[in-house]
């Protein structure tokens, strides 16, 4: 497959550069572009969040700086960058400086393996999915370092909380990511996106999304990704109205901005991973004819998932720590383990077309797909049932809490409010 850097390399060798130097320069340009996409993207994401949340809360939102307030986040960023950089006297210098750098580093690295269009992928690693999961470790380490090095017990406690939450939800997230990997038989993100085509009468509609085939795995991934990106309803790490800021309480100025950037980019990239694994990646109608359309589809889908997280942020209340942990360990982990087990059985059912020489699976049969879909429907049903029961109980509890004791059971719900 033609990769993105080959055109640039050809151009540079045409200018008379040696082959190695041309490759190095092309890769360096690619890395530079990717590293700068992150911060610029974050400006857009923050503005989008503020605008959409304001619309949901019946406010106008930022509208002063620039046309329609478009430059508001630029002004915010400049303000943060020009602030004084304060370091607590007893903070541990090395870890205190390294933590914000590492947090951004771990997030931006994931851009390198994103398959944004056919052939547009920084590195098509053969362990791409595993690479994305491994990057989470850097975020965890940076949170721990920030919490510890600030020399503040609240920051340290918040660091513990972050790590507990990230570790608990990383397990269902990673396992849910491996459900499509089992089907495709490859961890290459390019191959995973390519496998989600759906050819009908020789025309690639690009709608064979794994989200349709495996809705259960998608739901589990999405919930875990919300927790991983520290989004509502799992944003009790920062919980602006109740707690102090969390593990980055002692940070100010540019270092705080870096944590902020990392958090926004992380939640966006988790959505982009969901797009690559479950929502078809760059697949869509006419992608085979016009490859650039793939990039458009990818961006639209990724921003769609991001808007969904904003919608959830504007809608749901925060949940408690024990509820969060119980949901991860008692609901998501057993379900996703059962789902993977079922997937393995379903893919071994008869009906698949095998390669006569190697015995590899060329094409799964109807029976396999039906079995996978049925298993996912069961998981989807169980998860939504658990959630519905929870919401029903909560509704009952709040109603009890706000009614006078003597009237419980007597008072009928009034029609007025």
């Amino acid at each position, binding site marked *: 497959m033609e990769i993105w850097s080959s055109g640039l390399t050809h151009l540079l060798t045409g200018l008379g550069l040696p082959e*190695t130097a041309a490759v*190095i320069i092309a890769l360096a340009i690619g890395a530079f572009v990717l590293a700068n996409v992150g911060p610029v993207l974050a400006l857009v994401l923050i503005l989008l969040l503020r605008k959409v949340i304001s619309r949901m809360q019946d406010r106008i939102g930022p509208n002063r700086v620039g046309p329609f307030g478009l430059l508001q986040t630029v002004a915010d960023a400049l303000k943060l960058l020009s602030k004084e950089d304060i370091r607590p006297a007893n903070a*541990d210098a*090395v*870890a205190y400086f*390294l933590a914000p750098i590492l947090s951004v580093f771990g997030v931006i690295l994931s851009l390198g393996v994103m398959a944004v269009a056919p052939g547009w992928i920084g590195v098509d*690693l*053969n*362990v791409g999915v*595993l*690479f994305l*999961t*491994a990057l*989470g*470790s*850097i975020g*965890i*380490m940076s949170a*721990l*370092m920030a919490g*510890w090095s600030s*020399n503040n017990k609240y920051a*340290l406690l918040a660091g*513990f909380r972050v*790590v507990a939450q990230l*570790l608990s939800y990383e397990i269902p997230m990673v396992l849910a990511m491996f459900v499509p990997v089992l089907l495709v038989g490859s961890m290459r993100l390019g191959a995973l996106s390519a496998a989600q085509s759906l050819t009908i009468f020789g025309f690639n509609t690009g709608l064979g999304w794994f989200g349709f085939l495996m809705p259960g795995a998608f739901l589990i991934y999405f919930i875990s990704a919300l927790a991983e990106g520290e989004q509502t309803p799992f944003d009790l790490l920062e919980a602006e109205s109740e707690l102090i800021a969390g593990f980055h309480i002692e940070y100010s100025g540019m270092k705080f901005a870096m944590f902020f950037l990392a958090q926004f980019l992380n939640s966006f990239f988790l959505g982009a991973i969901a797009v690559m694994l479950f929502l078809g990646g760059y697949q869509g109608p006419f992608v085979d004819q016009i490859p650039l359309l793939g990039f458009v589809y990818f961006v639209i889908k990724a921003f769609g998932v991001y808007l969904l997280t904003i919608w959830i942020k504007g809608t749901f209340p925060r949940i408690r720590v024990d509820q969060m942990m119980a949901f991860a360990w008692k609901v998501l982990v057993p379900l996703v383990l059962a789902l993977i087990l079922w997937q393995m059985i379903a893919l071994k059912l008869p009906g698949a077309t095998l390669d006569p020489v190697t015995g590899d699976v060329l094409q799964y049969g109807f029976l396999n797909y039906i079995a996978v879909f049925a298993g996912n429907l069961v998981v989807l049903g169980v998860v939504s049932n658990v959630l519905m029961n929870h919401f029903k109980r909560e509704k009952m509890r709040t109603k009890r809490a706000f009614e006078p004791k003597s009237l419980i059971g007597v008072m009928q719900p009034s029609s007025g409010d």
Partner: protein
Amino acid sequence: MDIIQQLFPLPPIPTLQQAVFIPLALFTAVCALLVVLSPNLFHNALALVGTLFGVAGIYALLEAEFLAISQILVYVWSISTLITFAIMLSRGMMFGATSKTNKQAGTAIDGIVVIGFIGWCNFVSARSKLDVSIAVA
């Protein structure tokens, strides 16, 4: 002079792999030294993470991507988080300084002598083989 050049043949320009390997190996080695030399226990844990990262980088340089990623997943992610938690949750160890030395200097000297002797033997035998080959040539 000829013998030294034959023993350690250096190419005039390092290849790309060497150019990446040398800083990576230095990083790994310095981090590994910090693990034992740094007085602060938390710094030791961080240096251990750095060492494991460096080893993962060397795996990646050897084109063993799966091994590299597994190294990061298993060691950097799980085991070092466990170690860091254990250090942080043990009272009084977080901010205090630990002693850099213990009472094992004699053992260390014994070890250095033995390893040095083995290394010297290797060096001598390698040189004698080289002498033989030069003589044959």
